């Protein structure tokens, strides 16, 4: 299991859209078979009965747990920092594995500034993530955005430690 994750991650680090180089010798048979499925992104799970192999979708989903579902932002900013490229890539890969997958990008801000302005800022952050996913091949019909502004803090508190955790986009399936 661990190997699968590492592999999927390696693939992501090297760029979600490229075919990942795979060391076949280290790869268990079941993973090889599922990897061959990954070349067929549109194949839904129901088309693969009676197989214990992980679908590309399942694999990509496992990768998500590793990278997480949250992207954090600087104060009053909506540009995605480069450290989140792997997060974006993992989610793009997962979403690309099936057009049936839908995602909701929930933009959030810290409590500073007026509430409706922060709704705008949260939307801008969600849109930044939306564009990044679409650049990596995700269909726009799979994505909806929702801005909560400062209304849904992840943590309580009125200091920078809390603000840092609250300025975020949550990737919600």
């Amino acid at each position, binding site marked *: 299991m661990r190997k699968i994750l590492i592999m999927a991650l390696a693939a992501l680090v090297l760029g979600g859209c490229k075919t990942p180089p795979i060391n076949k010798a280290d790869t268990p048979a079941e993973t090889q078979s599922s990897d061959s499925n990954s070349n067929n992104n549109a194949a839904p799970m129901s088309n693969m009965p009676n197989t214990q192999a992980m679908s590309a979708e399942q694999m990509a989903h496992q990768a998500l747990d590793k990278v997480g579902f949250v992207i954090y932002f600087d104060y009053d900013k909506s540009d995605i920092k480069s450290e989140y490229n792997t997060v974006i890539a993992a989610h793009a890969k997962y979403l690309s594995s099936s057009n049936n997958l839908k995602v909701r990008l929930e933009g959030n801000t810290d409590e500073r*500034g007026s509430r409706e302005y922060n*709704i*705008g800022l949260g939307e801008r952050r969600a849109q930044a993530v939306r564009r990044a996913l679409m650049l990596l091949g995700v269909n726009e019909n799979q994505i909806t*955005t*929702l*801005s909560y*502004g400062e209304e849904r803090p992840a*943590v309580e508190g*009125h200091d920078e430690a809390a603000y840092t955790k609250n300025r975020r986009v949550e990737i919600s399936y």
Partner: protein
Amino acid sequence: MQRFISLCAGVMLGVFSTFAAHAELVIEITRGLNDAVPIAVVPFGSSGNSKPALDIAEVVSNDLSRSGRFAPLDRRDMIEQPTSGEQIQFADWRLLKSNYILVGKAVSTSADHYDVQFELFNVLNAQRLLGLHIAATTATLRITAHRIADIVFEQLTGIPGVASTRIAYVNVEGVVPNQTYKLTVSDADGANPIVIANSNDPIMSPAWSPDGLSLAYVSFVNKAAAIYVKFLQTGETRKVSARSGINGAPAWSPDGKQLALTLSRKDGDVDVYTLELATQVLTRMTYDPSIDTEPAWSADGSKIYFTSDRSGNAQIYETNVRDSNHAPRRVTFDGNYNARPRVSPDGKQLALVHQEGGNFNIATLDVKTGSLQVITKGRQDESPSYAPNGAQLIFSTQSRGHGVLALVSADGRSQQNLGATSGDVREAAWGPLPPKQKQ
């Protein structure tokens, strides 16, 4: 000769289909009031078969105190308690340094009915300024007390009192991430709170219709933002905008026929629009790729002020409603953050959120001269809303880690906090004056 002028107690009682809230607001004077006018509001007497269940003078006294203009005398300092003009020993009240004295009584006329009589005197020259009476029932005693406060306030200041108005606010309880959001309407003093919307998803941005009969607000129920209008008399709720993306910042036009609102539509471009309620006709007001939001109508309805970060940081702009093709005009230039404008009732000022030295405070802007005056001193003050007489604003601030509401005089000289008995309260919107009652 009739000693008292009779007032028709045409009291409006909203019929609500919803339930009462537990969270009440409690008042705490935080600063100012040094130049408040001393007044003695003597406990009202009673006569007849039944005694009123309400301490009328206490309600009147609190109303006058909350206005920031009056400093009612502490009851414990009153050496006598006259209930009519002829009982007043003016020399005693001069010693107590009261400029004015209000006396009165509730005369029981029949079961559950009262004739509330009151007289206002200038202590210095013993001149009788008012002598009125209002018919009331047990159910209308509190509203009657607010009316007495408003009549006294207007007599002494020349501007209408706002004790008979209502406010709407958002009450948030529970711990992150399991919070509940309630949209509450209460009397201006926090009494009679009634929850009109209740959700585990955020509720925000309440806005009163100019006639005071409806509230627009934003709800995130079902994981999508939508603007609703609640009709207070019928309890009916109508969804008026649920487009893709943001549906936010509703603001009623002065004639009550349109809402200005913020939408992001499919492309995510946050802009201000107007929505004609009867026809659902949508008109785009701003076109910039920046965040354009928080619309507020000018008093005459010809312009919309809004927040935009098109210059790189949030500032206030104005655009013509009838001709939105012209580039909006920037109206704030002090500091690097000015947002969420609200227009004073006379249209001459904007109240807004202004950042200075890391703190967010309420400021007023003189529309003609462009001069900006910061009127609050908190760290995280927001959401100013003018009282309908323009003399005060209600806004949100932090006190001991909690969100509370506060009142500040338009000149910033007096401030009082209105804390909730539970949870956080915020985003107060001050309702309009009740329809003028016949005298």
